[in-house]
């Protein structure tokens, strides 16, 4: 078995798979079951000081059932935990006692400097391994000047992170960022300047998942009204992957990746673009803690096939291949090559090319598609829509330099 252990902000994780701060980590009992299943770490759901009032509204979930696939994306209007610091302290103590080899992080959110610092001191005393600060919840909390209000302003981010870092005598501090900012590297730089130890990217995206066409009330419908929520799940993975890669290229700071990770393949991709910790929420809410079995086994088999002994060998491997658009080669010419043997004649490539491309595909008398190599620019749209595995490939254009 390959070595899956990895360090993040100086904390050693037995494997990079960590439960994100969210409903799956809202009690010690749940986290204990996750640890039994094999999870390397967990970040307890965002907590606050006792005076912070948390009033939830139900129902709080709505899914994007894209083409009957259920949960392409998930919107929630959940807030931070209803369980205040007093209870979370107890959870930390119990979990660290029972599972000393696993990493227990705690997520916090405060309204003012004193709150942030009190939370840090109490969690440190309880024995937490690291602290994550939510500067990023996009719904509900910003109405009170919390959550993404901080994360969207690099100055506020730096100042708040400093308060937290000041109070943290022993444990590392990680700032959870929002993708809803013009330049996420500016937020990451602010964290770096504050002296905090790492960043976590990304929290959910502010969204409106859909509208009930009969009642005109958007989802989720809370007694006749709805509100904007936070969007998570497979649909946001490309955004998260971009954010992590952007930060990794620009700022020298440890990154915990979160957002749309469901499988070991997703996790491997985030490691390849520079993350050293991967967190999951929606996939766990969908399929349960047991998905850890495949996360670990799949990553292990992948490393074995790649001849790698440690998961650390993956970290950042793809970053050199990401360049500015202007640096991409203009001499690289490809054309679509359609395998007429495996083609099932659904005309999808033809339509996509005709109405969204360069009119380079024609149908012959047998309705088989044929590429006109002079017209084909090699945009790749046809290969993207083709439902047959490996039927359309992009090949170097003959005669091109």
């Amino acid at each position, binding site marked *: 078995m390959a070595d899956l252990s990895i360090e993040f902000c100086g904390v050693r994780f037995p494997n990079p798979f960590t439960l994100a701060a969210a409903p799956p980590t809202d009690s010690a009992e749940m986290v204990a079951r996750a640890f039994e299943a094999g999870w390397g770490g967990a970040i307890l759901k965002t907590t606050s000081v006792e005076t912070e009032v948390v009033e939830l509204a139900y129902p709080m979930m709505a899914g994007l059932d894209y083409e009957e696939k259920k949960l392409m994306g998930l919107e929630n209007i959940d807030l931070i935990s209803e369980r205040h610091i007093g209870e979370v302290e107890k959870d930390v103590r119990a979990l660290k006692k029972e599972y000393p080899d696993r990493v227990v992080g705690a997520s916090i959110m405060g309204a003012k400097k004193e709150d942030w610092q009190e939370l840090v001191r109490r969690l440190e005393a309880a024995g937490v391994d690291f602290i994550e600060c939510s500067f990023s919840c996009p719904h509900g909390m910003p109405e009170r000047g919390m959550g993404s209000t901080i994360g969207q302003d690099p100055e506020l981010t730096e100042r708040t992170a400093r308060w937290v870092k000041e109070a943290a005598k022993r444990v590392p501090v990680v700032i959870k960022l929002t993708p809803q900012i013009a330049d996420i590297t500016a937020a990451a730089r602010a964290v770096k300047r504050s002296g905090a130890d790492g960043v976590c990217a990304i929290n959910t995206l502010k969204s409106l998942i859909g509208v009930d066409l009969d009642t005109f009330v958007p989802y989720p419908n809370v007694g006749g009204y709805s509100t904007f929520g936070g969007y998570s799940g497979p649909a946001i993975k490309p955004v998260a992957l971009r954010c992590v890669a952007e930060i990794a290229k620009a700022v020298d700071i440890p990154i915990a990746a979160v957002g749309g990770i469901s*499988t*070991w*393949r997703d996790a491997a991709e985030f490691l390849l673009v520079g993350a050293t910790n991967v967190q999951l929420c929606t996939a766990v809410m969908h399929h349960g803690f047991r998905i850890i*079995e*495949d996360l670990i*086994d*799949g990553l292990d088999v992948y490393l074995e*096939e790649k001849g790698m002994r440690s998961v650390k060998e993956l970290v950042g491997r793809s970053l050199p291949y990401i360049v500015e658009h202007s640096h991409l080669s203009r001499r690289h010419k490809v054309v679509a090559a359609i395998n007429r043997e495996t083609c099932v004649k659904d005309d999808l490539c033809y339509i996509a090319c005709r109405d969204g491309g360069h009119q380079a595909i024609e149908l012959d008398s047998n309705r088989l598609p044929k590429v006109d190599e002079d017209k084909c620019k090699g945009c790749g749209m046809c290969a993207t829509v083709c439902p047959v*595995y490996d039927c359309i490939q992009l090949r170097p254009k003959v005669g091109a330099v």
Partner: protein
Amino acid sequence: MGVRARMQEISPEERKKGFDEVERGLAIHQALAEASRCLFCHDAPCVAGCPAGVDVPGFIRRLKTRNFIGAARLIRDANILAGVCARVCPAEELCEKKCSSTNLSEPIAIAALQRFAADEELRRGIRLPGPGVPTGRKVAVIGSGPAGLACAHELATLGHSVTVYEADEKPGGLLVRGIPRYRLPLAVAEAEVRAVLESSGVEIRSGVCVGRDISADEIRRSSDAVFLSPGLGYQSSLGVPGERLPGVLQAGEVLRKVAAGNDVRFTGRVAVIGGGNVAMDAACSALRCGASEVVVLYRRSLDEMPAWKREYEFAAAEGVKFEFLTAPTRFVEDGGGLAGVECVRTRLGEPDSSGRRRPEMIPGSEHMIEVRTAIVATGQAPWPGLVGLFRGLAAGKAGVIEVDQGSQMTSVEGVFAGGDVTSGGATVVQAVAEGKRAAKAIDAYLKRV
């Protein structure tokens, strides 16, 4: 929810020309699409439907994330013969019958997915757990069919030193000498048998028949426990005159020769007597060996026929004829050869002890079915001599060895048994499950004594 994936298969017209494997497996995109139909039930009913308890949702999830090797290994944790069982399991009667997706659309094609994973691994080389820390205890396994292999492998991983006695030259039991190649290619069976033997480091003594080449007493003296898995080897008599005529063949013998690759040729019409899976295999094999027509004679009706529906449909599609409610009364001689089978018509009376309606002969309905060859496929039993070898070994109905359900221990202390010899003829997956269960019980027994 999408439609169930189907494997490509050779058309009945083409396939009956030879012994090439009929089903062609799923293409990668089919396998991935099928895997994403799985609902991943917690406490999944399909797992309970599998005699070996394969973690079906677990392996399908791995497959879905393209962790093909991880999927195959997870299956092999429960069933070392993953590729074999993916092909020969009556999945529609086991795991797939319980599938929750049935209520939405159609059951997940579990066997086809298992085959995809197992074949991916087969191509890269099967890796099975190796021998455990040596315990110094010795176990003898008699018979190297699925039950014996599963037991031997599990015992080896638990650290016991295992010797497998196999009467035949080639290990594998019915996997290499029974199930026809068009359903189970020899290469697949051999690769999995080899992987089991090589990974576990068990000693295999092939060409050694217990009771003939070595006595049971000697085996008992030289080992701390024994596992009996000799399968069935005894053809029960039909009790019909003329059974010894040339031209009257036993299905087991015919299938053994065909599986061994011997040149078996038939000419003209062939009758197959019986209605089980072995009869279906004999009929389809006869077609492939030159028979101009094959007719299956069965004394009850289609509803009572014990062959799996899939096997019956397979044979019928190839043009095998069925004469239901027909019982043979005499094999008729013609100049030393066979002229035909004399039969009577039957009708179904009251249910018998098996719960199926008993066939009653209709007087005056005698008629001749003219064939040069008749293949008798009416069931096999354990070799009756077995009970004589081990003093005190209790056998029940039809000569099957009686065992304790939980431990597979026979009436003789330290002697365990499993597979067809205890079931009277079941499935590969059941034989594997019993072999594995017995190994755990033997391990516990060895810790006790």
